[in-house]
């Protein structure tokens, strides 16, 4: 038997934008065992949410993650609205949907760029990120901020999109779609990309379900599951259908995110065309009751789970946030053993890990 070596992958590694360590045992360049080590970015946000009054937690939840910030804020507001319970005006639902899909667009473009970078395809990496800048510009124009948008409040949203901004958004999104589609065609057909991703880190449909995977990671294994199918926000009026691939490898995960990028733009354009006039905020009545509620939202990386428990006071009794990467990390324990050491970075990147989210 060849000698076994244990090597740390991370917490600092070129494919890891955030710190996580994988203790990898390998033998003749083949991975035989993996143990994850977390704890580099835990901030106790769930505990902090018990110490603040309801509205202040929006800002805390938005800081669980930079890339998913907008949808964390929306998810917190939605779970509190269910706990209350209260109904949000239709226009606010459309605005939340538009900003959620803008977030998905820039998150997927970021990931596609990271994938290209990890493969050494530098020009493609820069092109994806160049396009992404246009989406961030739209977020800045409509929300006032490129990263932490902070537009959602309990009862609706704090900003509207006027007609002039709407025209700019539609024009820019059409440009972004055209440019992204051209790049995605290159990504999907390039022999080098295929050589590094096809057949790597394969998860079958059964494994993906049993491992609790979610998001593009799950859908790439042939499972048609997406929280947007629940019809929350305005998704129920947009004819949404999940993007699914069946091969369960790194290439399939890339294709799901690539197709979802284009789909997210289409959803935004459709939402702009259907968005009704009207109020964007309704003031919550009374005090938060002693009640509990659950809300699930489909972030770019997958399903985020929010649980809130009120106790009749102005502070929450309990807030629980389970982020997509928290559920997707265990799949690495199955995907990595048996793979070549050189494929580890691509396989790890293929789950689109967000450690800031995971540790909260």
């Amino acid at each position, binding site marked *: 038997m060849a000698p076994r070596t244990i090597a740390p992958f991370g917490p600092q590694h070129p494919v890891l934008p955030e710190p996580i360590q994988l203790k990898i045992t390998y033998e003749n360049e083949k991975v035989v065992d993996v*143990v994850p080590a*977390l*704890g580099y970015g*835990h901030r*106790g946000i*769930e*505990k*902090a949410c*018990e*110490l*603040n*009054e309801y509205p*202040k937690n929006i800002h805390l939840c938005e800081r669980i993650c930079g890339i998913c910030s907008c949808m964390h804020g929306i998810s917190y507001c939605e779970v509190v609205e269910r706990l209350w319970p209260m109904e949000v005006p239709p226009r606010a639902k459309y605005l939340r949907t538009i900003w959620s899909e803008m977030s998905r667009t820039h998150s997927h473009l970021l990931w596609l760029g990271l994938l290209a970078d990890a493969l050494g395809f530098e020009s493609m990496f820069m092109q994806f990120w160049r396009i992404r800048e246009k989406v961030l510009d739209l977020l800045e124009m409509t929300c006032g901020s490129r990263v932490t948008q902070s537009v959602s409040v309990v009862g609706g949203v704090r900003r509207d999109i006027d007609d002039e901004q709407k025209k700019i958004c539609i024009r820019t999104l059409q440009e972004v779609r055209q440019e992204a589609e051209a790049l995605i065609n290159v990504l999907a057909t390039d022999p080098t990309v295929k050589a590094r991703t096809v057949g790597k880190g394969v998860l079958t449909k*059964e494994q993906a*379900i*049993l*491992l*609790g*995977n*979610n998001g593009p990671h*799950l859908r790439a294994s042939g*499972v*048609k*599951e997406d*929280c947007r*199918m*629940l019809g929350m926000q305005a998704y129920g009026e947009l004819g949404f259908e999940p993007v699914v691939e069946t091969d369960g490898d790194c290439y399939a995960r890339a294709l799901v995110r690539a197709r979802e990028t284009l789909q997210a733009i289409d959803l935004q354009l459709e939402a702009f065309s259907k968005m009704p006039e009207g109020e964007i905020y309704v003031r919550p009545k009374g005090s938060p009751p002693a*009640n*509990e*509620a*659950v809300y*699930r939202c489909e972030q770019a990386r997958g*399903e985020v*789970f929010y*649980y809130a*428990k009120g106790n009749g006071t102005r502070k929450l*009794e*309990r807030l*629980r946030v*389970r982020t997509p990467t*928290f*559920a997707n*990390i*265990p*799949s690495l*324990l*199955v995907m990595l053993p048996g793979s070549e050491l050189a494929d580890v970075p691509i396989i790890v990147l293929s789950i689109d890990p967000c450690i800031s989210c995971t*540790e909260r």
Partner: protein
Amino acid sequence: MIENLKEISKDTLLQEVQKFADAKARFVTTVCSDLGDKLEVTYYFNYSPGVDMVALRMVVGKDEEVPSISGIYLTAVLSENEMFEQFGLKVKDMAIDFGGLMLLGKDSPVKPMVKDDAAAGKGGE
């Protein structure tokens, strides 16, 4: 209010969870809450393909030990370790035991999510 919630005891936990695995349901997460002298633990599952979620809930004493479901759902191992280090919930036979150091460090507060007088009022406002 949580829909599709079933109250169970720790003695029937593995049996109930196995039913979900047999039905090809996806494990979503656990939620632990401090009830004062007891801990409330809820396990959430989702039927695939589809979006219906079902929950199992049990209430256990703070000194009681509960069985790990990571032998059935490996992915539960992170949630179980988190419940141990954040609430002190003792979980027996976890697939990976981080020894209370998964998210917290050696110098971190002990069981920070447990509600007590020391924790109340610190931070936040």
